[in-house]
């Protein structure tokens, strides 16, 4: 691919690695579905409240990728699955929150390139901060001493500008990575488990954040890890969405 003598031009989404590593480290070969939820606010603050009838919440386009695990455990990105999942999860989020009386506002792609760049940076930052929260809050061993288990994470002041442009008080961000095993992979997992290994047949890692666009703070955060379920179909996708939204402020 490259021309270099000693070239190395690989760009990789390290945060995914971080997320999986974080879960992998303390969950090991966990086989049950689990969700964890953490509701935001520092020790001195009230838990965030949301008037679902009035609040203006913009849904940021999902950061989502579905892959297939090959026999050897490599991940093959799947375009068609990703598109299906994007639709089902978006629809699921919209429907689930509508039931709570909240109408999500669609994100308006800014025409100005500086605005677009800022929003994309915020999205990237969310993925990174989200991965970090998982690592430190959910992995007991890796808790940051200064954070003392409190939820005090922020996307910074530029979030305010986005709030102004999108005419919204909150932004809902969702990050989801999902892998499914091929037949050959499933066979490899069976063999591996018989031999006492922890080879994964496929797993889902995701998190959602509600960001207060007036301050940039993450007001609510919830993470999801499971090795069952399917976001490629509407109905099971809705279950995943419900898990992801558990503890959503109201």
């Amino acid at each position, binding site marked *: *691919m490259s*021309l*270099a003598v000693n070239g190395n*031009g690989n760009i990789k989404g390290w945060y995914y690695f971080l997320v999986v590593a974080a879960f992998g480290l303390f969950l090991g070969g966990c086989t049950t579905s689990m969700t964890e939820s953490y509701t935001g606010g520092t020790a001195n603050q009230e838990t965030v409240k949301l008037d679902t009838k009035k609040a203006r919440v913009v849904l940021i386009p999902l950061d989502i990728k579905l892959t297939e695990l090959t026999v*050897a455990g490599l991940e093959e990105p799947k*375009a068609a699955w990703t598109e299906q999942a994007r639709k089902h999860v978006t629809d699921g989020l919209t429907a689930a929150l509508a039931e709570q009386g909240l109408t999500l506002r669609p994100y308006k792609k800014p025409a100005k390139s500086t605005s677009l760049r800022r929003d994309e940076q915020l999205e990237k930052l969310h993925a990174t901060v989200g991965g970090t929260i998982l690592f430190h809050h959910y992995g007991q061993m890796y808790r940051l001493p200064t954070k003392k288990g409190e939820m005090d994470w922020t996307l910074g002041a530029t979030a305010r500008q986005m709030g102004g442009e999108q005419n919204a008080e909150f932004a809902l961000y969702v990050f989801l990575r999902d892998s499914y095993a091929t037949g050959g992979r499933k066979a490899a997992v069976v063999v591996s488990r018989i031999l006492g290994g922890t080879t994964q047949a496929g797993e889902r890692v995701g998190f959602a954040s509600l960001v207060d666009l007036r301050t940039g703070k993450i007001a609510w955060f919830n993470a999801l890890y499971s090795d069952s379920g399917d976001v490629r179909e509407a109905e099971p996708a809705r279950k995943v969405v419900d898990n992801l939204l558990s503890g959503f402020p109201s």
Partner: protein
Amino acid sequence: MIGARNFAPLVAVLLLAACVAPPPPVADLKPGERPDINSDEAGLWMQMDQVEEMLKTSGHVVEDRKLNDYIRSVTCKLSAEYCQHLRLFVVQTPHFNASMAPNGTMQVWTGTLLRAQNEAQLAYILGHEMAHYIRRHSVQKWRSIRRTTDSMAFMGDLAQIVAMTSVLAFSRDHERESDDIGFDLMVKAGYDPAEAPKTWRALLAERDADGEEKDKPSVFFSSHPAVEERVETLDAKAAPLAGQGIVGDKPYVNAVKRHRRAWLKDEMRKRDFAGTQVVLANLAAAGHPAGDIKFFEGELYRLRGDEGDLKEAIVAYRSAIKAKGAPVEVHRSLGLAYWKTRQNKLARKSFSRYLAAAPKAEDRAMIQSYIDQLK
């Protein structure tokens, strides 16, 4: 990497012939063709679409419209049908590299643009990258990795070595194929074929400049053919046609000149002084203004700071001033070099000339304080 590394490659090669069947042939990607959404290739495209979005907002992309238009125009001279489906990103990093993603995201690093001497050399590099796209090397490589690892998932370390070795051998074949197609594209577009091997020869000169044996990647684990081999192959191809066609040094130098100083500053930070000296000599040969090149030569000596380097720096700065085209900072640098060699009077004079030439310089107050100290 592994304990058995000394004999492993040999074993791997012996096994290779037996267990890795040649991959099925892949047809060229047609201009504007998009892979079927259910295919593995569409997955790779999706992945690279995301990388492209990240690249756009990475802050490392050189957005100068004129430079981008120029490079794009050379791409279109190579192939009018394909160029419109490629997206060029000039990435600010001082190393020699370029890359092509399966979806047509093409990266050209500024270290490459600093090293190319003319349009013909740029055309060869772009042709090489375009060939990766047309020949769909990424998906070929992915399928090769997948097939090889699938068949060996239950085997141990050795299987991994065999798998990786065969995949890298496959990459080397892709590089050779791209060299070949890139060469044909640039010749067909009317460029002087003799410029193609020069790109590699300059890189060899740079690599070997400090006389030290660099840890050359082992034949078995490198994804690139030896540069020497690439030079030989291209030389043989170019020999019967050499000297015919466009070299295009003037338009090229003109297109990159606005960025030369910034890229040279990046280059200096690598602190590969012997290599950078080769780069500077090539820039001078390509027709970049001598004053500027001499200035950076002086900077190189001053930064390196070996025995006698300050004297060399002073010689270089003085010839930079004589040659014209040097940045005003040359007076400041010369002043610093004089000061360090305790030639205070000359130092003061150079600092004063700097302030006279750049009355609004940000460091005016600091330089003025130097002058006062030197009185």
